[in-house]
């Protein structure tokens, strides 16, 4: 488990020490400036004023302050950005070795927040809070000591306002903090509305719901404004009260100090110095108050980041590296996702080199079943084996490079077409070309001016749904898999292309074991095995003919597709 916020600093001890040192040095010199001036005036009064030496001393101090302050700001920037970068890298590395199930569970949005604003809060802690608190503490202690030395009676009177200010501050901040939290929640809400309206831009325009979106936004924005008003209300009270307290202290210097000066127990010089140091004293108290907020925020953020970092490494990672034959055994597999029973006691086996299909209604759990077979998720109950060995005992890399999956939704990276297709490290130039030909992408690639080096973009309109899906297939084939898992692959590819592609796969990848989730019985009628999945359970399995004879559910699905079967068969 990770320690508190300050434990972040441990590896940067040296740099933080330097930061503290520079901060103290520049503040100490700043405290000395009034003394220098007093000395100069005293010297003038005594007729010993030498302009050159004053100029020299003062210049030295001024330059030293300038150098120290700027060095401090460089060190604080460098140090805080270093910490942020290293933390980000650490979190990203942690994420990169995680399982898909984990990312799916904590959601990418939350991880994005961890990587950006949470780490920024920790960064602010180092860049702002540490130097501010060090210098404030130094100034408070320094100025108080000087006051006590000057005149302890008056000093105690003046210092009496400090607890009053501290208590006021504490009370107000205690009320403001929940409001800050609420502000953050409101900002998240606002951002969600903005994000959804951007992602749903087409829908919003089609149904002309701009006004509705605006009303949703207005509600969140209004709340943000109102919380802002309440925070301002509190601060509008706080700042003037603190100034007033300071003024009361000034007043007590005038009244009490004036008394002392008049009765001769205090010099006029000390009286003036009291006023100067009082001004130095108040500001740091405010700073510490504000910084306590920065620290609270940073602690909360650090807690969230530490949660990600302190997640235990995956237990018993598989080590078996072996060539797979394609024999897969799924036995008694159940899967629960949250409250929902997605799969229930599913069993079937795949014979090497055979073609198998999973058919079933929407939300039957087909996709999740495919994820289990691909090793992206672990089942809650039951086992999945490849060649008799449990899926978990295989080395991840060895498994994933031999079991390829084509996802239902297409993921195009902002890379060249070549890098998108040869995404797996185990893809070679030969296998790339073979995959492109098999996926019937040759003509498309040839039509691009830059061919395979064309960069395709995230949401680019340059690719049609079917083109994207064929790229996904080519990506899966490019690593020469032993087992190919297709998730509703043909949904967006036209019938002619689909038939051609599937025939290509059988021809160019002989001996491959195929497991295809599909809606179209016609394309899988001649498969070796068809598994009918409904509401997470296998209701029937067998060949097309067997199922027609035994499974009413299958017959129902089959008949719903009959009307056009004649045409499908032509091809």
């Amino acid at each position, binding site marked *: 488990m990770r320690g508190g916020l300050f434990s972040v600093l441990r590896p940067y001890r040296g740099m933080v020490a330097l930061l503290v040192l520079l901060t103290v040095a520049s503040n100490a010199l700043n405290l000395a400036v009034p003394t220098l001036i007093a000395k100069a005036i005293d010297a*003038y009064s005594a007729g010993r004023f030498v302009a050159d030496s004053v100029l020299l001393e003062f210049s030295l101090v001024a*330059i030293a302050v*300038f150098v120290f302050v700027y060095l401090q700001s460089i060190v604080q920037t460098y140090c805080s950005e270093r910490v942020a970068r290293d933390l980000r890298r650490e979190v990203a590395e942690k994420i*990169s070795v995680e*399982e898909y199930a984990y990312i799916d569970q904590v959601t990418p949005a939350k991880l994005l927040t961890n990587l950006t604003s949470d780490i920024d809060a920790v960064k602010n802690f180092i860049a702002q809070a540490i130097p501010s608190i060090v210098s404030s503490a130094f100034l408070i202690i320094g100025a108080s000591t000087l006051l006590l030395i000057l005149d302890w009676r008056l000093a105690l009177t003046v210092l009496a306002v400090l607890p009053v200010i501290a208590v006021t501050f504490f009370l107000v901040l205690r009320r403001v903090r929940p409001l800050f939290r609420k502000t953050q929640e409101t900002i998240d809400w606002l951002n969600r509305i903005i994000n959804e309206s951007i992602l749903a831009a087409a829908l919003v325009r089609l149904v002309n719901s701009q006004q509705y979106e605006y009303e949703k936004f207005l509600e969140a924005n209004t709340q943000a404004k109102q919380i802002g008003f309440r925070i301002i209300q509190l601060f509008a009270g706080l700042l003037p009260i603190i100034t007033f307290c300071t003024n009361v202290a000034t007043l007590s210097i005038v009244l009490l100090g004036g008394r002392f000066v008049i009765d001769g127990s205090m010099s006029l010089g000390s009286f*003036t110095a009291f006023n100067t140091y009082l001004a130095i004293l108040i500001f740091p108290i405010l700073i510490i108050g504000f910084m306590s907020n920065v620290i609270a925020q940073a602690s909360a953020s650090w807690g969230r980041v530490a949660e990600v970092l302190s997640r235990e490494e995956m237990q018993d990672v598989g080590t078996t590296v072996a060539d797979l034959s394609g024999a897969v055994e799924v036995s008694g597999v159940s899967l629960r996702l949250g409250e929902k029973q997605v799969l229930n006691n599913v069993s079937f086996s795949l014979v090497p080199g055979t073609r198998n299909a999973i058919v079933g209604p929407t939300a039957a759990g087909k996709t999740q079943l495919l994820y289990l077979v691909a090793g*992206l998720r672990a089942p809650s109950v039951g086992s999945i084996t490849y060649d008799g060995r449990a899926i978990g005992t295989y080395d991840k890399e060895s498994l994933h490079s031999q079991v390829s999956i084509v996802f239902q939704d297409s993921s195009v990276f902002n890379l060249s077409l070549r890098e998108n297709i040869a995404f797996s490290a185990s893809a070679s130039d030969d296998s790339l070309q073979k995959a492109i030909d098999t996926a019937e992408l040759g003509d498309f690639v040839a039509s691009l001016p830059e061919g395979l080096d064309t960069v395709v973009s995230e949401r680019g309109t340059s690719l049609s749904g079917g083109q994207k899906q064929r790229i996904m297939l080519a990506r899966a084939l490019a690593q020469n898999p032993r087992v190919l898992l297709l998730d509703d692959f043909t949904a967006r590819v036209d019938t002619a292309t689909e038939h051609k592609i599937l025939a290509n796969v059988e021809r160019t990848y002989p001996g491959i074991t195929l497991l295809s989730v599909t809606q179209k019985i016609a394309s899988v009628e001649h498969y070796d095995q068809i598994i009918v999945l409904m509401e997470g359970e296998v209701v029937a399995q067998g060949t097309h003919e067997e199922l027609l004879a035994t499974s009413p559910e299958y017959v129902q699905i089959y008949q719903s597709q009959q009307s056009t079967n004649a045409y499908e068969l032509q091809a």
Partner: protein
Amino acid sequence: MNYKLNTSKDVPKGTLLTALARLVPLMAGERRSVVVAAVAILLNSGVTLAAPALIAYIVDHFLLTHNYAGVMQFSLVLVGLYLVGLVAAYVQTLTMGRTGRRVLFALRNSLFTKLQELPIAFFYQNKAGDLISRINNDTDRLNQFFAQALMQFIGNVALIAGSGVFLLVLNWRLGVATLIPAACALIITQLISPWVQRKNLTNMQSQGGMSAEVQESLEHFKVVVAFNRADYFRTRFDEVNQKNYRSATVAGVANNIFTPIYGLSYNVAQVVVLVYGLSLVHAGVMTIGLLVAFLLYANSFYNPLRQLASVWASLQQALAGLDRISEVLSMRSDMQVLDAASWSESHSASGAAQSDVPVPVISFKDVVFGYVAGNEVLHHVSFDLLPGKTYAFVGPTGGGKTTTASLMARLYDAAAGAIYLRGEDIRSLSPSERADKIGFILQEPFLFSGTVGENISYGNTRYAHASAADLAQVLAERGLEGLLERFPDGLGTVVATSGDAMSLGQKQIIAFLRAVLREPELLILDEATANIDTVTEQVLEDILQKLPATTTKVIIAHRLNTISAADDIFFVNAGSITRAGSLEHAVDLLLHNKRQS
């Protein structure tokens, strides 16, 4: 039309005055608050400046003469002064704080309104991740400035001005000398602030790039896992992380340069007052008391100036954010609603209103279209769709089917030619008229966070505010309730952010219900059932059959079973649309035409 947002590094030159001037238009409509705040600021600064003078007076006239009664009397004046200051500071903070909040509120509103006005092309030309980061982060920066820094900024400017005047009035020669270091600091600021601004802009861009990269990688994480490319995520992230680190460090060092510069200028000013002042005292031109006052006022001039320097960075960042927001705000949609009169005269020959032939629901006349100039996607396409019929658009992927459908719903405007909806130029219809007539089920359905019920009634003027029970009844009346069985809690099923937990098939069912419930005259289904199982699809098919006889249906599909019920089939290939006549002909075209996509 180009809606691409600027990613270059051009920065408008910024000085203190131009920066302030750019904030002024935001305050329009806040005149009363600004006046109240200005009065409060003047009073508060007045008190702050007068108090030291009063204390100096007490010292000179009462302490030195041992007159404690005078001390008491003037202390009372001081108390009065402080009380005025207390009230003024309260009013100042409250008024300015609220003004800032209101300005931010209005700015966010106009930004969001603008986003809603812009056509779909804007969203496809800019990366969603970058757009989101731009809007979230930039408004946040403005938020921080308005909520925290603005107050300090304005109060300090008032103090600086007041002290400056005092310095010049007390002794203009020493005053000018005292202000020279400040002038130097300001000149340096002016010289380097474009550079600082540029560094901040670069930093913001690299931040946006980092968010976009993380978002993209995490959304495709299963691919990263399934293809053993943990290293892809790591290297890509490392690259943007390192880039962000460098730009952030440079920006930090640049932003922090102001504090030491202003600190130095204050120290120089102190030396000037001391050395030049003492020489003036020596020459008998001024008294030593005046010299002490000078030191005090130099302090109240330079201290806020130094604070201003620390707020300056925040102002610069706010302005950079404002720039990026202004860029979005200055975008103009080129898809305006045409004046009905202007087109009807010039197009009266379109024959739409002529006698016995029914008016086509949709009519394409010689339509040319391309997403980017010079790359035509549709070439001179013409066809008519008649009311109550079912049309199928088939053809290879990438042939232009979705594009044709998008033009029917005016997601884009044709580059040449015209599109008529019920005989009227589609550009002359108001968005609400158009939305009433057209239902469009998109290829990639989108779900809002909320419930299934809210998603079904989304954007529906009739049922948007219906309760779940009412909505359930409406769906039951139309025989649609059976589809809800696919959702564990029916209409109340919770949809998480962007519907991530829903299957594509479930999303398509919701999109289907959403469109059908609107009872459009023209219903476009763009691969709308591609991921729905055939049994459910049969149910959807029955529902389509039961729609009013006047509903025109446009079905885009690869799967032939979905188009068997079509009255007419169009074959879309390589940007041309031909009428296929029969299903057999369409099948023939599909099977034997060489793909040209």
